[in-house]
């Protein structure tokens, strides 16, 4: 099967589940493996959910590897108020017969990247602990990564704190390692994450569909409508996958980025330098300057994203 | 109409000069005194510029006091690339014969606030070193301050660093003291500061005015246009004064604000919690961001409204 080779790193997660459905069903993508990281829910729950959702998508042949259980420095905290105790909004999926592979996620990725001559794409949808550990233990893989698509960070307001988005805040040190790695990165920030949404009627129509994937997707979206008490439900992480499918539908900007590690109120903030060049002259050596750069998704065509989601999950 | 009593705390500064001109000429404001702080330029130059600008505005009776010459903890960093070496964009004013008061700015404010029966408004247009020192040294006068209008901070990008605005970054500890004091604050942030602007043709007509204050304002604005080669330039701090004159021209929200003191990249950032309230409840355990104060933040302005206010009051 042709298609772009990608690995997904997930903390499934309602919207990670949507992303997995989209990636597994899209003919343009060839999912070579899924690595699990603790985040929305603890690692073993992430593994279970990932196996089960891949099963729904008829994609049980895709290897799933268990990764880092905790962030590099901090203790874990989870987001069960958003994703439910089971991490899938309370939805019970039939248990997949598959199991995780023997290798640790970091070993798996290192081995896979080493084995191919072509470069790989990694789509990271949870805290960046696996990716950072991979880069630190196997720094040579960096040159073999064509693109790293990350769901994380925020230009404007954060979510888990006023300035920080959940994935980055869970493991700011890991994010710092990744942004300083010189891997070409596309950052799908919280500011655009929230925009691709479906209303209750559309969600109900999905649930009523004959297509199993579409129906499950609808149920996952419904769980968001219930938990978040909003009128519309967003596809979240699935939008990051969609960036690979319809790159013409996004607007990006390249910006300097660093992660704030020690701020009392700002730990985990993705610090961007958006100043016009003339103003940035004003900074004498009063503060540490920003060391990384990344391409940030600033805007997207919402309709195109909604369409590609609905069209592809039934393929 | 009773003019409102205000004190100005300045680091004159091209746009502080514009603010002084506006406040001095407006019949709706009564300047009880101007205190000087190091900021754009060192405090002695701030004093000199302030005296000369007040003279030019026909307000040499207004007492001027010299204040703090360095921030509470930080090293002083000035902004001569913006304001020019003399702090007035290179504009030479006639030297005023007036002298600053014999007392320190903080002592001056203490006396003034103790003596009066009505409360006062302080308009702080530079780093908050003087105000913070006043609050810490003389907490008993705090109740006499009905509002502090602060030019400082940013919700979006900063100026002197990617996330911090100059006044707050110069003395973050002072800002933290002021924001935590419980005194009602109106925060005129960098995001709106840059919006209230005039273009070259308008500025030229100011410069050609027969009104001294308007002409001086025009020259000050022109110096900024020339320095940066832009088609328009903002009235800066004068916008904060214009807000007092035209409260209808601003949109302000009561928001939780904290000053980041320890960030590697974010020291001096005004951290504003803009999340919708139910999302803000999601904080867990030790992730809880403690935002101790809410203050009134000017999140948007009616640009033309403030431009008109500036022109109207300056010409009086």
């Amino acid at each position: 099967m042709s298609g772009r080779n990608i690995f997904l790193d997930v903390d499934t997660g309602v919207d990670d589940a949507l992303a997995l459905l989209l990636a597994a069903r899209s003919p343009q993508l060839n999912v070579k493996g899924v690595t699990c990281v603790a985040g929305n829910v603890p690692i073993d729950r992430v593994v279970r959910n990932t196996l089960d959702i891949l099963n729904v998508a008829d994609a049980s042949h895709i290897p799933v590897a268990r990764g880092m259980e905790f962030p590099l420095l901090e203790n874990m905290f989870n987001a069960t108020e958003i994703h439910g105790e089971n991490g899938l909004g309370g939805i019970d999926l039939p248990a997949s017969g598959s199991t995780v592979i023997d290798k640790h996620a970091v070993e798996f990725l290192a081995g896979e990247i080493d084995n191919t001559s072509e470069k790989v794409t990694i789509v990271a949808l949870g805290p960046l602990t696996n990716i950072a550990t991979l880069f630190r233990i196997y720094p040579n893989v960096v040159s073999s990564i064509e693109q790293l698509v990350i769901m994380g960070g925020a230009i404007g307001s954060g979510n888990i704190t006023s300035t920080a988005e959940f994935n980055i805040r869970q493991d700011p040190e890991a994010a710092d390692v990744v942004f300083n790695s010189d891997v070409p990165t596309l950052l799908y920030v919280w500011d655009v994450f929230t925009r691709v949404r479906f209303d209750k009627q559309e969600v109900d129509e999905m649930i009523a569909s004959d297509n199993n994937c579409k129906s499950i997707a609808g149920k996952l979206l419904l769980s968001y409508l219930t938990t978040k008490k909003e009128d519309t439900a967003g596809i979240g992480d699935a939008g990051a996958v969609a960036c690979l499918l319809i790159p013409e539908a996004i607007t990006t900007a390249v910006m300097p980025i660093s992660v704030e590690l020690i701020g009392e109120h700002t730990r985990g903030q993705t610090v961007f330098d958006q100043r016009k060049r003339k103003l940035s002259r004003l900074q004498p050596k009063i503060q540490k300057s920003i060391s990384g750069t990344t391409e940030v998704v600033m805007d997207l065509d919402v309709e195109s994203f909604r369409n590609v989601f609905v069209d592809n999950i039934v393929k | 109409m009773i003019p409102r009593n205000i004190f100005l705390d300045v680091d004159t500064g091209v746009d502080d000069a514009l603010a002084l001109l506006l406040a001095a000429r407006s019949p709706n404001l009564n300047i009880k005194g101007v205190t000087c702080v190091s900021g754009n330029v060192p405090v002695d130059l701030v004093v000199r510029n302030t005296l000369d600008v007040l003279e030019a505005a026909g307000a040499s009776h207004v007492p001027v006091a010299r204040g703090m010459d360095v921030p509470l903890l930080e090293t002083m960093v000035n902004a001569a690339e913006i304001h020019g070496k003399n702090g007035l964009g290179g504009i030479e004013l006639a030297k005023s014969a007036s002298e600053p008061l014999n007392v320190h700015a903080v002592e001056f404010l203490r006396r003034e606030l103790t003596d009066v029966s009505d409360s006062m408004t302080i308009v702080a247009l530079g780093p908050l070193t003087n105000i913070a020192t006043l609050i810490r040294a003389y907490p008993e006068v705090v109740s006499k301050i009905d509002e502090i209008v602060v030019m400082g901070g940013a919700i979006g990008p900063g100026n002197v660093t990617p996330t911090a605005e100059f006044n707050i970054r110069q003395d973050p500890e002072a800002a933290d003291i002021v924001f935590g004091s419980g005194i009602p604050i109106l925060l005129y942030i960098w995001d709106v500061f840059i919006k209230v602007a005039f273009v070259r043709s308008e500025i030229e007509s100011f410069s050609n005015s027969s009104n001294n204050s308007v002409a001086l304002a025009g020259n000050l604005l022109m110096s900024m246009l020339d320095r940066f080669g832009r088609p328009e330039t903002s009235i800066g701090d004068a916008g904060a004064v214009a807000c007092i004159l035209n409260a209808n021209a601003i949109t302000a929200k009561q928001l939780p604000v904290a000053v980041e003191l320890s960030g590697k990249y974010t020291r001096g950032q005004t951290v504003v919690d803009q999340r919708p309230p139910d999302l803000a409840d999601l904080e867990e355990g030790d992730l809880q961001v403690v935002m101790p104060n809410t203050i009134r933040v000017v999140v948007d302005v009616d640009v033309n409204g403030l431009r008109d206010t500036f022109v109207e009051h300056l010409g009086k």
Partner: protein
Amino acid sequence: MTSVIIDCDPGHDDALAILLAAKHLDVLGITTVSGNESIDNVTSNALKIVEFGNLTDIPVIRGAEGPLFRDAVYASHVHGKSGMDGAEIPEPTTKLQEGHAVDFIIDTAMSTSDLVLLPMGPLTNIALALRKEPKLRDRIKLMSIMGGSSTSGNYTAAAEFNIYVDAEAADIVFRSEIPILMSGLNLTRQVLAKQEHIDEIREINNSTAQVVADLLTFYLGTSTRHSHDGAAMHDPCAVAAMIDPTMIEFEPMHVVVETTGTHTYGMTLCDVRPGSVKSKPANMEVAVTIDSDRFFKLLIDTLRMY
């Protein structure tokens, strides 16, 4: 015999530590970490040591190239450009064992009961292993660490080199709840090798001892140039603690690693206040005094065994 893995960045004192350990402990492997010098140099030095010590059945495994988050700093002013200057040692022919140090540590710990770790360089490998395999917490019996100080630092006023190079890694390790013996500068400064020790080693009739005498001569030279009274035997102290614990006096203390201080980054804060004032329970044993004569007797007697 106690099964150990030595994690090191040779380093003159690392060399002595390895030679000391190899005759008294069951050294399952030597893992290297970027520290005194670059990972390439310290790894090459580790291979040199197993060769001139005739210890080539101990596998050497290469580890982390740099600290977790910070840029690497080296200590060539102490150890020379190669990281182990002073002796004529041929380029090693022994091969490294395949794989990464982190995985060697994890695999060995999972398959060996009562494994003891002997970290004597920056703690990058250990931290990565602990994070990657949380089960290590229950598999590792003890860590005898050379690092930190309950008094003053060396690389900075407050911090000892190993901890300073990767304070975040040290923080992970110190918070791991695995039992730790900490041999810091406050202890190792009591064990200074001087010319008379070198002379005694020079008298030993084996090639290993001769190399050691050459290395110590260099190390004594740089130490004296930096106004020390002798060449401090840092890393061997952590080994001595495992061979003969009665040689060293330990005190239980609460220790944390400072990771955000401007002037105190990398400091090990040991709470030494009188018992009644202390607020937190002890989390490790900190070495406070050592019988220096007994130490040198052990070291020199061991070198005779080569």
